[in-house]
């Protein structure tokens, strides 16, 4: 017969304020199997833990129930406590009397009764607990960083500096990310490229970092310390080992001014063979197979030639002809690289809201209504206008410039209820840049609230207003339309409580908000983690575990978690590096023993568990002609799905067996 001890925690007044802890403790002693029961003010305190340890020893308890807060908070604490008393740490069950009872139940008597039921259930469950032992897995001390923006760069450099090997995967031809597209950065106004490009070069030159650009992660298998990742290295058609970066080829491409350059947000052209921008790392061009004439023309070897006809020749191929190194290789194919990693870092960044969803602002069709990212390129001296602020419609200097904030932020109707956090600041910065370049221009900023919480941020916004003469108008713009070569804008000044109208507007800059990458959910699925409603990666705990995600060994930093500015992206990247360092400081990891196991004698070999397992942790085995399913304990995450799907009850989650669950229910039902 089990000897169960019950300990009811007051949690100060958190539990005791609503639950009659004494009554619960007294009732517990009458539950079959319980030989000891008491209550304490704070079970998690050192004194409280001592009471538990002493009681276990004195009363020869072999199982423990603690009625306290959520196991999420203190399960680990109490596991160690019972272990100190000489018990296996899994001979413990926590009845959640705080989150499940006192915090959510209004009536005192009801709360006390519910607490008693939960304790009964816990006793029922723990009575059938079995000692469990954690397994051991070795750690592959290499990190994969997905995304080569400022967050990924920082994380990669920090991890590499600790002496661990890093592979960085970036899907664009160059690293640099969003920050590379920016002109100046707030609130210091230093040049974005000037502070970023040294870091990019560091990545390229670091002996511990291997850079895979123009590459994407295709599949992730395995578990913490032992991930198997398949990376698709897309065909670049230029051999990175040979190319010297002279870029002679780019100038000769007949399409050199024909294709919108994504890096310039489509506001400047590129060729079919190109590097996205001057400081690109690596400075090796790619050939865009969607456009390249050579690659699009039919392969003569594959064309059927009728008698008497000439074999067709492939078109163009100029780049290959001008390359002195012979680096252009039209026969290159996508390459699948399979690598092993101990940790994965997500730094996939963000996208900008598509303002064509705002019909009232011209749906992207009015040429002089541009986005903030367009503005960054226009104002940048290496951008399409060499830094001259001009109206896209006619190339003239604008006299009246209007900024509109919260376009695709704080707009529930457009599916983006959240604040993008960066727009207030970059709008102030852009207003300042307008004033610097166009001393006579009128500048207006339509805003709802100014959110400038950050070091030097509020001062920066005030400078935009006071020193640079940006007129801030509190109110949202309702509509923009063209009239006589200019724009008319209908707005409201809510501080005076009046509608206002503005004629002869020359340039409108929309502060488009941050959204998740369009394929973030897909990526999350590939990696086996989750996103929030908006596609941002979910962290384990927003306050206490802000860079960990619910799959062990996977971390995230930067704007793929939520909208954030450069300082925050860099800070989280550093945090991730520290977390990876902690992980890699172990040679061996202890795995959670609460994993599934399958009784081969009960298994009917239906395969349901194999097909429902989210982590591909179950395989079909055969022994002497009999098939049965088997769990790979290192890959199992203990979700219990197999156990639910298993008809004969062969699959059981250790520590949460059918027997334990049924005993809990029976205890509550008082069978």
């Amino acid at each position, binding site marked *: 017969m089990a000897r169960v001890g019950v300990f009811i925690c007051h949690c100060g007044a958190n539990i005791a304020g609503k639950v009659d802890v004494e009554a619960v403790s007294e009732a517990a002693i009458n539950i079959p199997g319980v030989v000891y029961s008491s209550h304490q003010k704070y079970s998690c305190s050192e004194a409280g833990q001592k009471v538990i340890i002493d009681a276990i020893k004195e009363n020869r308890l072999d199982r423990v129930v603690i009625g306290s807060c959520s196991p999420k908070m203190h399960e680990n604490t109490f596991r160690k406590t019972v272990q100190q008393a000489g018990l296996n740490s899994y001979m413990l069950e926590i009845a959640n009397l705080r989150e499940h009872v006192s915090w959510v139940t209004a009536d005192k008597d009801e709360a006390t009764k519910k607490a008693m039921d939960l304790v009964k259930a816990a006793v029922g469950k723990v009575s059938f607990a079995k000692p469990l032992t954690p397994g051991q897995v070795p750690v592959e001390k290499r990190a994969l960083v997905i995304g080569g923006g400022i967050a990924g760069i920082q994380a990669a450099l920090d991890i590499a500096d600790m002496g661990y090997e890093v592979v960085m995967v970036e899907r664009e031809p160059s690293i640099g990310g969003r920050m590379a597209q920016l002109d100046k950065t707030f609130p210091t106004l230093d040049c974005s490229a000037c502070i970023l490009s040294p870091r990019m070069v560091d990545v390229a030159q670091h002996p511990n970092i291997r850079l895979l650009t123009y590459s994407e992660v295709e599949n992730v298998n395995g578990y913490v310390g032992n991930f198997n990742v398949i990376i698709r290295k897309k065909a670049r058609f230029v051999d990175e080992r040979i190319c010297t970066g002279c870029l002679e080829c780019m100038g000769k491409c007949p399409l050199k001014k024909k294709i919108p350059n994504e890096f310039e947000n489509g506001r400047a052209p590129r060729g079919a063979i190109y590097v996205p921008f001057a400081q690109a790392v690596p400075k090796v061009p790619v050939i865009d197979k969607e456009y390249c004439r050579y690659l699009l023309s039919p392969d003569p070897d594959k064309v059927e030639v009728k008698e008497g006809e000439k074999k067709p020749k492939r078109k163009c191929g100029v780049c290959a002809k001008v390359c002195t190194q012979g680096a252009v290789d039209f026969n290159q194919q996508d390459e699948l690289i399979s690598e092993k990693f101990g940790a994965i870092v997500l730094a996939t960044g963000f996208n900008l809201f598509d303002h064509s969803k705002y019909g009232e602002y011209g749906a992207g069709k009015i040429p002089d209504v541009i986005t903030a990212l367009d503005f960054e390129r226009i104002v940048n001296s290496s951008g399409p206008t060499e830094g001259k602020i001009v109206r896209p419609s006619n190339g003239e200097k604008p006299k009246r410039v209007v900024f509109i904030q919260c376009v695709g932020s704080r707009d529930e109707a457009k599916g983006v209820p959240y604040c993008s956090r960066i727009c207030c600041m970059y709008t102030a910065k852009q207003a300042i840049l307008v004033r610097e370049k166009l001393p006579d221009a009128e500048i207006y900023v339509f805003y709802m609230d100014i959110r400038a919480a950050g070091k030097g941020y509020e001062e920066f916004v005030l400078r935009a207003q006071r020193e640079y003469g940006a007129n801030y108008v509190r109110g949202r713009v309702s509509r923009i339309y063209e009239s006589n070569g200019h724009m008319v804008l209908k707005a409201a000044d809510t501080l005076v409580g009046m509608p206002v109208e503005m004629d002869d507007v020359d340039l409108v800059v929309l502060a488009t908000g941050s959204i998740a990458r369009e394929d973030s959910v897909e990526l*999350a699925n590939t990696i086996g983690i989750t996103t929030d409603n908006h596609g941002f990666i979910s962290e384990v705990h927003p306050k206490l575990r802000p860079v960990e995600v619910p799959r062990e060994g996977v971390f995230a930093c930067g704007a793929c978690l939520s909208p954030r500015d450069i300082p925050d992206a860099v800070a989280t990247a550093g945090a991730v590096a520290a977390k990876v360092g902690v992980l890699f400081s172990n040679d061996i990891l202890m795995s959670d023993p609460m994993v599934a196991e399958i009784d081969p*004698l009960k*298994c*009917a070999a*239906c395969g349901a568990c194999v097909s429902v397992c989210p982590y591909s942790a179950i395989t079909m085995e055969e022994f002497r002609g009999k098939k049965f399913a088997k769990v790979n304990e290192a890959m199992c995450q203990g979700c219990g799905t197999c156990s639910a799907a298993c008809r004969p009850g062969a699959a059981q989650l250790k520590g949460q067996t059918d027997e334990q669950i049924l005993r809990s229910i*029976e205890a509550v039902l008082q069978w």
Partner: protein
Amino acid sequence: MDKLELQLRAKAIELLEEGEVSIIIGWGPGWNSTKATPVFARDGETAEKLIFNPFCFNNLSVYLPRISEKTAIIAKPCDAGSIVALLAEGKISRDNLYIIGVACQGIVDPVKLEAAVGSIDDATAACLEGDNIVVEIDGEAKQVSFAEVALDRCMSCNQQNNVFSDVMVGEPVQPVVGEARSVVPEDAGAAWWRGFWSKEFDRCIRCYACREACPACYCRDNCAVQALRERWTGPRLDAQEALMFHAQRAMHVAGRCIECGACERACPVGIPLTLLHEQVGKAVKKLFNFNVGEKVDERPPLETFRKEELESGH
């Protein structure tokens, strides 16, 4: 002799002789002519016993998961559905299987037949003549229209000539036209069902014939109720525990049951189990838009995992 049966036997013998398969599963004459019985033929002599008529109500696919040699099976449309379901689960291998489909115009419901003509255990002869079933009992030939005594399920079947098979035997047929007899009132709510099943399950003697006859119940010795857990699915003759057993079985075959009715026909105390499985089947159809027995490459919906299920989005 029926042309269809001749073809059937010829095909079976051919398959055996050519070594295509080592065993043929089909129906043969039972201990009385209203009761066809399964036949397992390994030689031509046994294969000569094969028959097919409206009394062949067993779903023979129930034997497939237990046989690992090369097998040919004679399948009517509903049995073929079971075979598809078993293939979809990977429980049997297509490579080891040769399916002889038979065109089927309907099967006699023994309960209806008995109600119409009296104790069919005493029948001395029975056959389908035109649109009527003729049964001879105590020397008296009793005649009843086929539509009157056919299985409800056959009235709504539209697969009679379209059987998932390697070869089809028999001429195309017309389905039997009649009306299904539902005992369920249109407005049946939870209370009605509770009353109905407590009455029905009170008769259950826990013989497990339903389970044995069911092609989806291949767990056999590993069946969950083998645990006979006290107070849950205990071994007592108790309507509640019987309900628990049958409800559990219904859940276990949900998304895999083709509602062939083999369980109901096997039940010695006449519990209308098909009704239970139909109810569950409707829910599966509605929730997952899944038709059991339609595709060989789609696992049952309750046995699949999609990555979206990892809480992404919502």
